[in-house]
């Protein structure tokens, strides 16, 4: 954590952490506006902006038409003209209509104007499965965007990180895609330091130190990986668990330092395996640390089907589990 202005803290879940951080941003800077579907009177479908409209007014808490391309596009124009918009895509699954505005416009605004125009924009999107969300309320979208120069992508797992990283994203002079795993929204609680602080984008967090295997993950699966690592610890096996927190930029130093110590790498993510974030991490480690490895790199990631069938057995088949992660860890430690 970069700057913690005081040592007191409050226990909150991830929804409350997003809400408290947005509230603070709205209070501190009247250039900040929130726009998205149902963010006003309804207070967002997860109640993240509940009552914001009463305090900040409909000019700053904007219920948009159902039109994702222009939610992002209008935010881009606001940002180009000096506001600090926070755009919300109600579910990450609905982000596709705005793909060009994110990839072709927001990510290129500074570059294509050679710095004359900038796009300080945060796009928040609840993502991820395990919530009976079926095929259009379950997806992970990070791999579709992390290929794109000009974007930054954050996917925090803990309430304290939500606050620090969201503050950093709001302060950032460039567009940031801020991904919030829906299943962690109310499931995950934690101490959140009071007062304003930021966590730099691009810094991973070593959540548990270990010596025999490095497990890299982000989002919901970080919590399950920790659970799995704790199970293995009981059998005397030592797994280091890294929470990436930022997908782009990604923290090479922390990953390499860990892999060079443990000599084995397991990458765990919910998003589809093929072309996923794990592929880039694997390639980077193969390029930079191959001769430190004592086992092939292994990826435990989503199967090659759309995420994810609605019926419980289909959803469970798509999702991994702490038990499956523990088994993968054990196999790799014993390789």
């Amino acid at each position, binding site marked *: 954590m970069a700057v913690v202005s005081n040592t007191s803290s409050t226990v909150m879940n991830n929804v409350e952490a997003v809400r408290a951080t947005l509230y603070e941003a709205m209070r501190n800077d009247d250039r900040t*506006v929130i726009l998205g579907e149902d963010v006003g009177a309804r207070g967002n479908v997860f109640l993240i902006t509940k009552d914001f409209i009463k305090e900040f007014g409909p*000019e*700053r808490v904007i219920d*948009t*038409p159902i*039109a994702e*391309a*222009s939610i*992002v*596009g*209008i*935010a*881009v*124009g*606001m*940002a*180009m*003209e*000096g*506001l600090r*918009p926070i755009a919300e895509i109600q579910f990450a699954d609905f982000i596709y*209509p705005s793909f*060009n*505005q994110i990839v*072709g*416009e927001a990510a*290129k*605004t*500074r*570059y*294509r*104007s*050679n*710095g*004359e*125009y*900038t796009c300080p924009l945060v796009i928040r999107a609840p993502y991820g499965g395990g919530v009976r969300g079926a095929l259009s309320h379950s997806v992970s979208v990070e791999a579709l965007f992390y290929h794109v*120069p*000009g974007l*930054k992508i954050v996917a925090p797992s803990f309430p304290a990180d939500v606050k620090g990283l969201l503050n950093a994203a709001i302060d950032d*002079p*460039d567009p940031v895609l801020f991904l919030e795993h829906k299943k962690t929204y109310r499931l995950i609680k934690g101490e959140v330091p009071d007062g304003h602080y930021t966590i730099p984008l*691009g*810094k991973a967090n070593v959540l548990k130190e270990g010596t025999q295997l490095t497990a890299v993950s982000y989002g919901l699966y970080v919590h399950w990986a920790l659970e799995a690592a704790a199970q293995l610890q009981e059998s005397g096996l030592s797994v280091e668990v890294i929470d990436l927190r*930022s997908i*782009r*930029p*990604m*923290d*090479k*130093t922390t990953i390499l330092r860990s892999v060079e110590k443990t000599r084995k790498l397991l990458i765990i993510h919910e998003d589809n395996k093929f072309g996923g974030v794990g592929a880039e991490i694997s390639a*980077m480690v193969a390029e930079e640390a191959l001769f430190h490895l004592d086992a092939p790199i292994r990826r435990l990631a989503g199967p090659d089907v759309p995420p994810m069938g609605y019926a419980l057995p289909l959803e469970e088949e798509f999702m991994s589990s702490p038990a499956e992660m523990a088994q993968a860890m054990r196999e790799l430690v014993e390789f």
Partner: protein
Amino acid sequence: MSTDTKAGTLERHGLNDDQLRAMLRNMLLQRQLDNRGFQLNRQGKVPFALGSEGHEALQAGAAMAFDRGKDILAPYYRDLGLCLGIGLTPYEIMLSIFARESDHNGGRQFPNHYSSKAIGLMSFSSVLAAHLPHAVGAAYAIAYREQAGRAVLATCGDGTTSEGEWHESMNFAAIHKLPFVMLVENNEWAISTPLSRQMAQPEIWKRAAGYGMPGRRFNGFDPIETYAAVKEAMDRARSGGGPSLIEGICYRYLAHSTDDNDLTYRTREEVLERRKQDPVPAFEAVLVEHGVMTPQEVDAMRKDVLRETNEATDAAEAQPYPKPADLYTNLYEGAWQPWQS
């Protein structure tokens, strides 16, 4: 021209002689710069050029209704004359054509994709209608800050009105009564696709009623009528009256670009027939007929425009290309790697 009244006096809509001459000069400059871009392409000096021939009057008139230093322009790629009219110089146009280091975007963008924050000219891509939500967002910023007397002028061609983001932008601007003017430059062609394959109902301005905003169609071959239509809409927007949809009728005399052969989809005869409407000689004749300029003055203006174009061409061509290392700057604020170490 429709500006001629029965009595033979010119309906000026408040424009003085200097403004009328400035509009003609803009039109002549557009024609000359367009021509120069195609020449440079055929000489093998530049890989690409794109012209606005047929749009000159529309753009000269619209630019005259733009309040420099206050308004914002969100143009598309066929807006040479509008960009000249709000303050971009021929030299800057040529820097764009030659993709030089000192071009506003450092030679990164296609020609005609101008931007200049200093004069309120928003940066845009080639993805049609993608700039319209930006224009609406900028208009929202103006309204949010309660900056009376400012408005956003956004433009597009007829083909762009088929895009979803065109609708989304109009809808949002109308809901919030934003200081926003949607100016459609209807030249009847979207590369090779005629208006009839773009929409069943060809009067674009009539869609305004569906959004609950004023709409108007005007003769875009007439710069004075254009000025009046754009000014009316911009004045309404600047004074809190909300957005408008205005449609100017013009024609695209050239192929879509230097990479297009328009004879694959339309005949030379059709283009020659429409050339009879050419707004440039028509407006010259109007100004001479009404004593605003003598034929000699018009001739001198043509020569001066050619001189300025030549000087701008030579000066821009002499400028250096961007350096290879310039590929890597201004992606994010500060130095950058996707892998953080």
